């Protein structure tokens, strides 16, 4: 059993409607102040944990309130981070907001930054976080471990650990993420044409199969320093979505797909940092795939130029 403290970054946006009644709002503020005061007492040396926006009370619309909240738990070594947060919801604080669904790494809902590293809550065992370099140090030499949980970087925070992933999804959608089948039918060894499924040999499947594993969790985007910085870039998740079709032997619109990402704000800002590959919970070699896409684009260009010169000649 381990004693742990989950230091959760929280954010409560200001709401423009006047739905929230004033007394409740005040009570809530007070509780947060208590919590941060408590944290501050516990760790006098650490930075202030409450980062609430200061308002003079007259300001019509403050942006919202940020603070960190420490939750103490005693858990077994096999517990994962999602178990911890769900237990907090059940037994300590039902108001803590975070996305989760399947609980075993298939739905892609629960990407957050744990000790600064983008990961899925359900696939992160508490014990694996203890060795993180960025793990906050406990105030004294107690055996308590502190685990910092923050929203996924690179995306706007909506509430607590919930971010708006719409930038990623609209990038993916923009790349027309559906098979534009070439419709090519293949001849069978016996000489007949197969009119049923598009035949695809296992090695052709191999060329893109890994990319179909993407669950669009956004971990790669949060891990990519280039994307996080705000550089115009389609981002690793959209690159995976593009590659999934580019390398599919059934695809008929590869040229169109090359054009869509062959751009200084397309795939080229990638500098091969490889953090996306390192963090991908599905084990996709994102960086390697991006490199392959770049290579394919270059090869395609050379081919086009060659044809062009030949025709011109």
């Amino acid at each position, binding site marked *: 059993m381990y004693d742990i403290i989950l230091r959760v970054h929280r954010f409560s946006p200001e709401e423009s409607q006047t739905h929230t009644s004033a007394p409740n709002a005040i009570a809530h503020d007070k509780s947060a102040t208590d919590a941060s005061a408590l944290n501050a007492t516990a760790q006098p040396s650490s930075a202030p944990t409450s980062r609430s926006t200061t308002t003079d009370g007259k300001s019509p619309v403050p942006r919202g309130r940020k603070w960190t909240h420490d939750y103490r738990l005693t*858990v077994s070594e096999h517990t994962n981070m999602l178990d911890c947060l769900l237990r907090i919801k059940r037994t300590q604080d039902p108001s803590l907001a975070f996305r989760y669904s399947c609980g075993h790494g298939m739905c892609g809902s629960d990407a957050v930054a744990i000790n*600064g590293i983008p990961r899925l809550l359900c696939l992160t065992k508490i014990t694996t976080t203890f060795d993180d370099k960025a793990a906050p140090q406990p105030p004294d030499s107690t055996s308590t471990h502190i685990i910092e949980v923050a929203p996924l970087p690179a995306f706007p925070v909506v509430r607590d650990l919930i971010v708006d992933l719409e930038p990623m999804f609209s990038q993916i959608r923009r790349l027309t993420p559906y098979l534009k089948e070439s419709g090519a039918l293949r001849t069978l060894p016996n000489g007949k044409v197969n009119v049923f499924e598009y035949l695809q040999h296992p090695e052709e499947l191999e060329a893109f199969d890994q990319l179909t594993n993407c669950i669009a969790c956004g971990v790669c985007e949060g891990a990519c320093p280039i994307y996080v910085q705000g550089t115009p870039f389609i981002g690793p998740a959209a690159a995976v979505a593009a590659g999934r079709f580019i390398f599919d032997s*059934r695809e008929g619109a590869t040229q169109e797909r090359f054009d869509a990402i062959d751009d200084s704000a397309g795939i080229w800002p990638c500098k091969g940092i490889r953090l996306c590959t390192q963090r991908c919970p599905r084990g996709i070699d994102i960086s390697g795939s991006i490199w392959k896409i770049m290579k394919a684009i270059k090869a395609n260009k050379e081919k086009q130029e060659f044809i062009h010169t030949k025709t011109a000649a």
Partner: protein
Amino acid sequence: MREHDALPFEKSALLLRATKGKAGCETTVGKDHSVTWNLTLIGVAVKGETDESRTSRRADTTSYLSVSCHGTFWYATNRSVDSLGKAFLVCRHTLIVKEQLDLLRRFPLSDTSLAIRNNLPRRSAENARIVSMTHSHLNSHYDAVIIGAGAAGLSCALGLVREWEKSQEPNHSPEEMPSVLVLSKVQPLRSHTGSAEGGIAASLGNIEPDNWQWHYRDTIKGGDWLVDQDAAKILTQEAPHTVIQLEHDGVAFSRTEDGHIAQRKFGGHTANGEKPVRRVAYAADRIGHQILHTLWQQCQRYDTIHFADEWYVTDLVVEGLNVPSADGDSPRVCGIVAMEEASGTLQSIEAPSVVLATGGAGRVYHTTSNSWDLTGDGMALALAAGLQLEDIEFMQFHPTGLAHTGILLSEAARGEGGVLRNSDLEPFMQRYAPGVGDLAARDVVARAIQQEVAEGRGVADPLTPDSPRDCVWLDLRSIEKERLEEALPEVCSTVREFAGLDPAKDLIPIKPTAHYTMGGIPVSLDGSVYCIMENKPKPAPVQGLKAAGECSCVSVHGANRLGANSLLDAVVFGTRSGRSIAETLRLHHPLPGQNTSAKTLATALAARTASIDALLSQARGSAISTPTDTISGDTTSADIAHASDSATASDNPYKLMNDVGIMMESHIGVSCDATSISSAIDQLENTFIPRAQRLTLHDASRTFNQELCAIMEARNLVHVALAMAVATLNRQESRGSLYRRDYPDRDDEHFLSHSFTATDGTVLHKPVVIDDYPPQKRIY
């Protein structure tokens, strides 16, 4: 086209003007271009915050602007920005330049202005599409509203638009396309379809001879003859075509050496009832993920399929049942009331067609393979609207849930050669089902495991050696290591990740886990929802209301579903529902107006608004306990103890759903009897339903107030649980997944019929459709 892409932006500039309490943007565009900006400002982060932490910017501001003008224009947010230095402005744009362009831009701002570089993502007009429904109000009317975006919901949307396209003249204009809204309480790619592992059954015969009649008969036998045979015939006849359509849509099926879709063996699928047959098409062990993503991707082709992600449907509005209809006795759907999770705003949507495709109710049980979202919302919506649930007493327990997590280890594990062993390491399934052994139907295996455990041959989860010996071993060691990794990657990683074991070397502890709700909202072969009334032989359809997938019951699964038939059911009958809506729209477009709809919807919206406002206004400002509270132990009993001492004040929906699950598991689990069922009903009626009604919020904010949704989910869950318990008590026999210790045999004389359970506890019956195969004893 390309010209328009570039021009306005080359000459335009975006300025972020900030004064205390207000931020604004200004832009200039080329004079010759009429430009409409739809700008959604989704975040402003100011220097100081961005520099200080590795978590990068915090965007705090949300605002929605829509400006249409000519030349220079200016817009402002209603949000304050305290200071302005180097800032990031994160915007989502929809720019309309003659053709419609949808652009996403993220750009840094230095000081107060930035010229937008001419490197915008390009998009052709053909694919142009205004997509983002997030953070926006929906229209008040759609031709069809689909609730749920898993395999059934997405298939329905595709079936609808494709059927419509097919029936149109070649040169029709896109305006004529019906508008379809797909609402989902999670982003569609999060749907639980994505967790389906094993495969999708179809008699393609790619590897060995097979035909649909064999599949048909296996499905009926698997369902213990409670299957409506007309439905099962459609399911199995349409299966090969359906799988090939999925392949054409892009599903990356595993392949045979010659490039065909590969097929594997699966429990209960046989060649002429004799030996296991390779019938199940698969994509390693993540077929659900493949199908879900492919269907969502295909939906992106169509401008007329709109998505409303993270909207929770609070009410299904039906006239003529609970609410009297103005024009006679035929019940009719008016529309829905839904809440946007991100903003907490409620909206009513009128639609002549509404499809429920919300999935199952596995969360009624504590140990379940289902995601946290499967709280039976669609079923509860139907019950609340005055409809019935068919055969809801049949819950399938999947034999191989990973011990104490309930996470599913695919049946493919046994299809590939995995063997179940008891504490003596005996491969006991050979005793229970000679011949098919480990590939017997799921209920047979689940009960065999329970029998082994009851007779003292169970094992304890090695992670918690002191826990009860309620598991058995799954042995994958006989599968060649390379094949294991290739064919069962998800199983292997789940075992490694969640049990810390090596499937190639270690025995894996498994126990039955609640997996699939065979019963659900009664539907006919085209997905139309109906109810039956006492003394009326003819079912009464609810005009405009459809259901598909796990939340529905067209009764192809009967009393027990065969593996790999659930994805098939969702896609086949989802598509059929969609097609049938398209057909109705084509014949009556627009559908005959019902002027009472608006009024009924407005009443429902007002009632729901009042109830949610009441919850929010009662919300306490603080969490139930201080942050220093220590919760010890990993057991759920600690949670219950915690609940009892702090009573109502500390109750919350998460705790409630947990407690309901534990109760249901012990009382109406793999086996039950009248005493345990009656006790469950008593607890639901006298403890859990009142508790659900008393739940209050712990936070008053509207933005992603998850607890608010969870309260509604908990209230749905208890009512579905009650319907299950009532239906179970009513069925005095053992059939398929339902095993009653007090009635251990099947009783065709009295119970070869479907049950229809309403929320008031009345249970009616309807005979099973038997076309080809009269009931026989189900032996494997």
